[in-house]
């Protein structure tokens, strides 16, 4: 969308306008939170991809009886476990699994939630009321419990875990997307578009959606952070993907009995979870700063 196209809007424009001068990445980079978030997320995603592609210092499953329960060293960055497996390699692989599930679940929640939110904000009173009512009901079920209930029905697995985690986050996307759409619907440029006879899909796709993109981006990032935590929680409870697939939650669970003699087996995967979550939270804050000039931190 060109800058002149946006400048006719009311309140949301100011944000778009600022972003327009240097591109959204420039705006993101200018926020301190955004810089921290971008750097951490890039490192985390690259590490996760290495885990998925199997580019790890050791094979995560290879047992080495000669190197059992070794502490942190240059050859084993996070030590080894009771079978002599390299914890760092296992953590990379686990991070890959966790990220796959987190991304898939956020895609599910984001797509369904955004469509629901736009429809609830744009269409008539009754459709809107119905969607919001269902959203309220879904919101009443705590997200983790929602995920647990779905896992009961679907059983464990990468796709199943993703659905379980994603569905619970749908109402949050619906709520977050709906309120700006309500405002946009009454804005001058959308009215102008309607007068010009633009079709409803065109109005939604070309005029409404780009203007809620910022909100969606912020929410996506925060949802990713939450999904990583939720996935880790599920697999910690033994309800994640079945073995041999190991996610970070499994690793924490497996190391809990070992941690009193080999603390590194617990610290490695735990630290990676914490860093990944911090990264996505910072990225979300940075995106919010970038799309809302009032809260900008330099």
């Amino acid at each position, binding site marked *: 969308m060109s800058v002149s196209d946006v400048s006719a809007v009311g309140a949301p424009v100011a944000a778009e306008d600022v972003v327009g001068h240097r591109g959204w990445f420039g705006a993101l980079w200018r926020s301190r939170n955004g810089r921290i978030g971008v750097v951490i997320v890039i490192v985390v995603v690259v590490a996760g991809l290495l885990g998925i592609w199997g580019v790890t210092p050791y094979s995560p499953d290879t047992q080495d009886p000669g190197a059992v329960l070794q502490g942190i060293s240059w050859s084993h960055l996070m030590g080894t476990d009771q079978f002599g497996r390299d914890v760092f390699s296992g953590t990379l692989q686990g991070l890959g699994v966790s990220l796959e599930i987190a991304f898939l679940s956020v895609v599910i929640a984001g797509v369904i939630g955004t469509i629901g939110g736009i429809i609830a904000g744009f269409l008539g009173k009754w459709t809107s009321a119905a969607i919001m*009512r*269902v959203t*309220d*009901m*879904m*919101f*009443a*079920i*705590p*997200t*983790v*419990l*929602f995920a*647990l*209930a*779905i*896992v*009961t*029905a*679907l*059983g464990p697995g990468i796709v199943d875990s993703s659905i379980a985690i994603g*569905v619970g986050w749908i109402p949050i996307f619906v709520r977050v997307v709906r309120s700006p759409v309500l405002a946009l619907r009454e804005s001058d440029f959308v009215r102008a578009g309607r007068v010009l006879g633009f079709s409803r899909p065109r109005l939604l796709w070309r005029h409404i959606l780009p203007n809620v993109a910022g909100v969606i981006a912020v929410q996506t990032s925060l949802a990713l*952070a939450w999904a990583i*935590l939720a996935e*880790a*929680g599920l697999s*910690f*409870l033994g*309800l994640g993907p079945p073995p041999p697939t190991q996610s970070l*939650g499994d690793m*924490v*669970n497996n190391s*809990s009995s070992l*941690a*009193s003699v080999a603390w590194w087996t*617990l610290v490695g995967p*735990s630290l990676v*979870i*914490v*860093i990944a*979550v*911090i990264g996505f*939270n*910072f990225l979300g804050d940075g995106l919010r700063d970038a799309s809302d000039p009032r809260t900008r931190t330099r």
Partner: protein
Amino acid sequence: MNVVLAIGWRILNIIITLLGVSVIIFVVLRLLPGNAVSASMGVSEGLLSHAQIVALNQYYGIGQPAIEQYFSWLHAIVTGNLGVSLSLRSSVSHLVGADLPVTLELAFFAMIMGVTIGVGFGMWSALHPGKWQDGVGQAVSVVGLAIPTFVLGTVLVVYMSSKLHYFPSSNTFVGFFTNPWLNFQQIIFPAFVLSLGIGAAILRTTRGAVLEVSSLNFARTALGKGVSRRAFIWRHLFLNSLTSVLTMSGIQLGYLLGGTVIIEQIFVLPGMGSLLITGIKNQDYPLVQSVTLVFAAGFVIVNMFVDLLYPVIDPRTRKR
């Protein structure tokens, strides 16, 4: 009269919401055709004759069409026995009655600690924007939001039992009225672990709200006319931020309830979370759906009280 009407309206709303919740839970759990009898009988399934399986299916209402199953569940909810658990062979209301107090106690202490941490650090942070106090507050919120409860819980359990040789949870859980001191020791650590995450979220909200209020004109006026610092902080800033803090605390209760499931596993507490896990591991649909509904009811009811508190705190939200 007005108050009675308002409460009546809200209760009706809660009932409608919970009805919808029950439909959602039911639909979700029946997404895949799992056979609860074979799951609950486990290994012994092969030993059952065909007639026995049919009889069991009929007894637990499994053979019925979904819609009838839903209404028989609804009937069980209304009459108060909440259905029959397949794996524990007991009415769910009986099981919930035994386990609910543990989770309530846990959630109560966690909420109190979470709000204390959140409001305390949040106010401290907001009153010194940009200074080191703010940095400490921000660090607490960043870390608190990112540490999974099960990591903190595991670390605490491992450290306490192996290094300090102090682990009250290794004793069988005792109720508050049997042995208050041991009960307190068993609850306080898991409650602390749970409180950190919600505390971090409440901290962020408190800080944001207090900062926003302090930038408003009336705050400057209050300072200008010489209101004492203590009155300014508590009467002008805190009271005006309280509604946002309360809203956030209500929302955080959802995360808290979800968190109890994990934390009860780590600290071996016989609460609702442990009950739910038992149900999930045994594919015990009646147990899972009723326990989830009880959790949802708790969330909805507490948030109704939050709604009722707004006009008490903030006269501007009172309807005339």
